[in-house]
């Protein structure tokens, strides 16, 4: 059962980047509530409460707009250029019994067999699209990599999901592989491979010039 967070929101009368910047300075996050074929509502929520809720794994949020309470899920979050602060959030209206499509992070657990033979586990995908009830959204999908040997791969189809959760991503989605690491090239080796000077595409080649003159 997903945890529910109650957030007090204020309707944004004025939208636009300048007003959004002012809101962020005041410790709030601009957000939007949409879905269920109703008009979207531009709101702002307390940044600290929202971020803390996300860190605690809340996906279901009860947004209190005035005297109304709207059940939503966090559909998308935008970060700043450094990936530090949240600049905007998308909240989608949901019904408790409704099936929703969400992306859930994958957590690789355990030490792979192959690592004892000098291999490393490479993570190819960090989240999976699933379909489940709004109240049953898992915080993360734990995948055991214990059985992976050198040269083996783990696909989305290999994971056993809990009851009531359906995989939306392609079952062929590559999640993790275990492989040996090739020795890194030394600077000398790279220098040997690298060209002394790059080839210039637009530069006229002397042979072509000669042939053109002959043609004339």
């Amino acid at each position: 059962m997903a945890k529910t967070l109650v957030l007090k929101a204020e309707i944004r009368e004025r939208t636009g980047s300048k007003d959004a910047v002012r809101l962020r300075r005041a410790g709030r996050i601009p957000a939007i509530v949409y879905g269920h074929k109703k008009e979207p509502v531009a709101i702002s929520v307390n940044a600290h409460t929202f971020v803390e809720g996300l860190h605690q794994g809340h996906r279901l949020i009860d947004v209190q707009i005035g005297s109304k309470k709207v059940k939503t899920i966090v559909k998308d979050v935008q970060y700043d250029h450094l990936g530090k602060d949240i600049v905007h959030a998308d909240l989608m209206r949901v019904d408790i019994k409704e099936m929703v499509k969400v992306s859930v992070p994958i957590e690789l657990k355990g030490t792979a067999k192959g690592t004892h033979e000098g291999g490393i586990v490479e993570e190819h995908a960090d989240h999976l699209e699933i379909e489940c009830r709004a109240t049953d959204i898992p915080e993360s999908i734990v995948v055991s990599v214990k059985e992976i040997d050198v040269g083996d791969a783990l696909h989305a189809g290999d994971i056993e999901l809990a009851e009531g959760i359906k995989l939306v991503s392609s079952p062929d989605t590559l999640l993790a592989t275990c492989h040996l690491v090739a020795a890194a090239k030394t600077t000398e080796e790279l220098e040997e491979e690298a060209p002394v000077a790059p080839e210039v595409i637009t530069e006229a080649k002397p042979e072509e010039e000669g042939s053109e003159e002959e043609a004339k």
Partner: protein
Amino acid sequence: MAMMPKRVKYRKSQRGRMKGTACRSNYVAFGEYGLQALESSWITARNIEAGRVAATHFLHREGKVYLRVFPHKPVSSKPLETRMGKGKGEPEFWVARVRPGTVMFEIGGVTEDVAKQALVRVAHKMPIRCRFVKRRHSL
């Protein structure tokens, strides 16, 4: 010679400006941990190579190092004791343009502690302030 493109359209380029912040290449995409630039700067091919050597040397073939920047831009300079004029100088070295937020190096297949130690060594080779970042899982 260090890293440089194999083919280019023009041999020399103007200096240009580096305004704004990184809108792309600003998240960890391949490995699990990364080194993010906090300032805008030219990162020379030598800087990149020094960082790569520092990381691979520390990791001892344990993890995998990803380079997320490539020196595409030629920088020319005039020889010493030359009078001004007589055309643009010859290309001397190659640089990557880095803006605040760009993830320059990534490491995968090692623990967070090891990755942090390796990336601190890489950061010492960089001419700008950097920070250690982790891959963000979806939200």
